[in-house]
């Protein structure tokens, strides 16, 4: 393609990418580097139906003139990144100096919101992603060997967890696993423990969130693998049968190598999605036991006083986290690509 043709061909895409991907990124980074002006207080008399009293209020005129002078706010540099709500540099340093052992240090770190959220998020990501891929693959292989009359129906039901909106799906499960719900009650009966409550224990809440995560994301892996199985070279499969390969050997030496590129693709997407785990935490009301970076953004923006800089900082950290997480897979794809060329 000529350079000129390529330029005009690519221009609309480039403009769209600039507008909808690059600009918001720049805006988020900017917002994370600036914080609102210092508030000017004044003592005002406040009267409500319950009486009058002196209280602290904001001097709007003074604050507005500050804002008019510098609309972006105060330049904070990396202050927000390093404060207690995020990377907590000084708290981590203090914990390192004070703790007498590595265990005590990790305990102190675990008390900081960012590191606690990372502990859950990474556990979630690295357990749910492989489990969902394995489960999705098993479903795909099983559905593929079904009679064609049954396939449509089974595919539809297998996709249901993905079709149901995540918030609704998690709410439904949340009610079912309540100690008075059908699953919660069944578990109490199964383990002969009337006080068993999934919602009251951190460990069990994590398990519950991860089971939900696998339940919700396996259909995506299933659909992709099922599509891949339709292009399986029948010749290779037949020759392997003639050579006397068992079903397990067929899967191991023919099917899996064939869909390996799809596994990379699904892993990429799901690592990204699982790192941003959010809906189940809200749906399961689980923020006492498990938080994630996405939940922090939500919490910063949902309070009565919204923390825009803090939310932007968390967004940038999420993007950085996703980049780090995906880098091994991306490097591998790049190497594969170069080898082929």
């Amino acid at each position, binding site marked *: 393609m000529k350079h000129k043709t390529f330029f005009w061909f690519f221009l609309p895409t480039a403009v769209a990418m600039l507008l909808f991907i690059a600009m918001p990124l720049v805006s988020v980074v900017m917002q994370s580097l600036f*914080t*609102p*002006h*210092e*508030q000017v*207080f*004044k*003592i*005002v*008399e*406040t*009267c*409500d*139906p*319950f009486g*009058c009293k002196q*209280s*602290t*209020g*904001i001097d*709007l005129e003074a*604050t*507005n003139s500050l804002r008019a002078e510098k609309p972006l706010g*105060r330049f*904070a540099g990396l202050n*927000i990144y390093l*404060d*207690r*709500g995020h990377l907590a540099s000084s*708290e981590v340093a203090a914990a390192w100096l004070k703790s007498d052992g590595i265990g005590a240090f990790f305990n102190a770190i675990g*008390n900081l*919101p960012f590191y606690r959220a990372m502990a859950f998020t990474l556990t979630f990501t690295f357990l749910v992603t492989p489990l969902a891929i394995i489960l999705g693959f098993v479903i795909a292989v099983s559905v593929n060997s079904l009679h064609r009359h049954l396939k449509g129906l089974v595919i539809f039901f297998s996709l249901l967890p993905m079709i149901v909106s995540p918030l609704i799906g998690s709410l439904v499960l949340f009610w079912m696993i*309540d*100690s*008075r719900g059908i699953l919660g009650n069944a578990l109490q009966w199964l383990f002969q423990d009337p*006080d068993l*409550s999934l*919602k*009251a224990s*951190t460990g069990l809440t994590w398990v519950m969130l991860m089971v939900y995560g696998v339940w919700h994301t396996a259909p995506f892996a299933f659909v992709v693998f099922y599509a891949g199985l339709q292009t399986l070279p029948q010749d290779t499969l037949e020759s392997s049968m003639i050579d006397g390969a068992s079903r397990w050997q067929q899967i191991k030496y023919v099917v899996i190598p064939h869909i390996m590129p799809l596994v990379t693709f699904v892993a990429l997407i799901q690592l990204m999605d699982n790192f941003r785990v959010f809906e189940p935490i809200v749906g*399961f*009301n*689980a*923020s*006492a*036991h498990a938080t994630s970076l996405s939940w922090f953004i939500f*919490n910063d*923006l*949902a*309070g*009565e*006083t*919204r*923390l825009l*800089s*803090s939310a932007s900082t968390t967004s940038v950290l999420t993007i950085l986290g996703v980049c780090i997480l995906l880098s091994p897979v991306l490097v591998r794809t790049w190497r594969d690509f170069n080898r082929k060329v």
Partner: protein
Amino acid sequence: MLLKRIALTSALVLTASAAFADCTISGRVSIIGNEFPAIQTIGAGASECTGGEVTTNLTADHQTLNVPGMQGDPAEYTSAIVANSSIVALMNDDLIRPLDDLIAEHGQDLQKSQLITIDGKVMAVAFMANAQHLVYRSDVLAKIGVDVPTTYEEMLAAAEMIRSQGIMENPVGGAYASGWNLAQEFNNMYIGMGGEFFSAGTAEVSINNAQGVATLEMMKSLSEYMNPDFLTHDSNATNAEYRAGNVALMNMWGSRAASLVEAEGVAQEVVDGMAIAGPMTVGGGNIPATTLWWDGWTVSKNISDEDAAATFIALTHAIRPEMLNEETSSQAVWLISGYEPTDASEGVIAAANAGSVPYPMLPFQGLLHTALGAELTDFMQGKEDAATALADIEAAYNAAAKEKGFL
């Protein structure tokens, strides 16, 4: 037949003219507010006005929508229905206008006590009051032979008796869901213990003290008599536990008391046994461990004077004394002249008479509330001690307050 139809038609015409007669507006009215029966009544009242377009958006998510919806010029919402906590966000961003001129022109009938005055300017018009107070089961208390508790210590003693006599396993209810609800319960108890949230006149938080520790210990003791899932129970879930007959004592919102046992399928003993009392005190203090709340409406700053006048007239119409009738009277503790308290309002009125304090209208109170909601959970689960929890809360608040420019 014909006569009947004529009678019906004229009755309709009469009611219609009665409703529409006194409210004509010339401007746009667009209201955002919370969603519960009393506020729906206000929204419907404002919609009776003719001559201009009246739209309402009543949703539980009003707090996340009202600031962005009022920042534009002209603002999408001409009025936000707020409470003492949520007016602060609108004031901090300078989004609502002083109402003194409009009151002089159109609001002569409003009572002085309804006007929320800040620094000499009226910023909102209150129409109802609310508070959390005791809701209990009179039949259960009669069974164990105990008087209605007036302190949290008596509540604990009663709860122990109910459990040990095998009447209920977890007799105490509480909206202790992590987040806003849990923080609110801390606020109540801390006020009851006589604590001050901030050093006077500054934004410096001061909850890491003896009252703070006592507050947390009382909350922990109460939670031992609650459903083990208490950190996931908001006020809806707590009410459901009460309806199901699993709870005998709880601190609940007045605005929810009237409709508490109206749901379908509530056992007759729960309906008959439901009773309301004033809020309790704690730790030997005189101030009840609760906060007083008002709900009121505001008028946007970034709209034309014409729309502002229309909004003011429509909302004044919605809270005129004639709107009180049998149905609306029980929906809230109205601050409107001519309101006759109903049985359901007993708790809120007792709270006001007992000298309860209003939820603080400080610009930085919301930040402390958020910090409390996120950091208290470790203590409630027994993962850390009270002093560490309070230090964590202060640290989380300080980080947020520094970012916002309060410190």
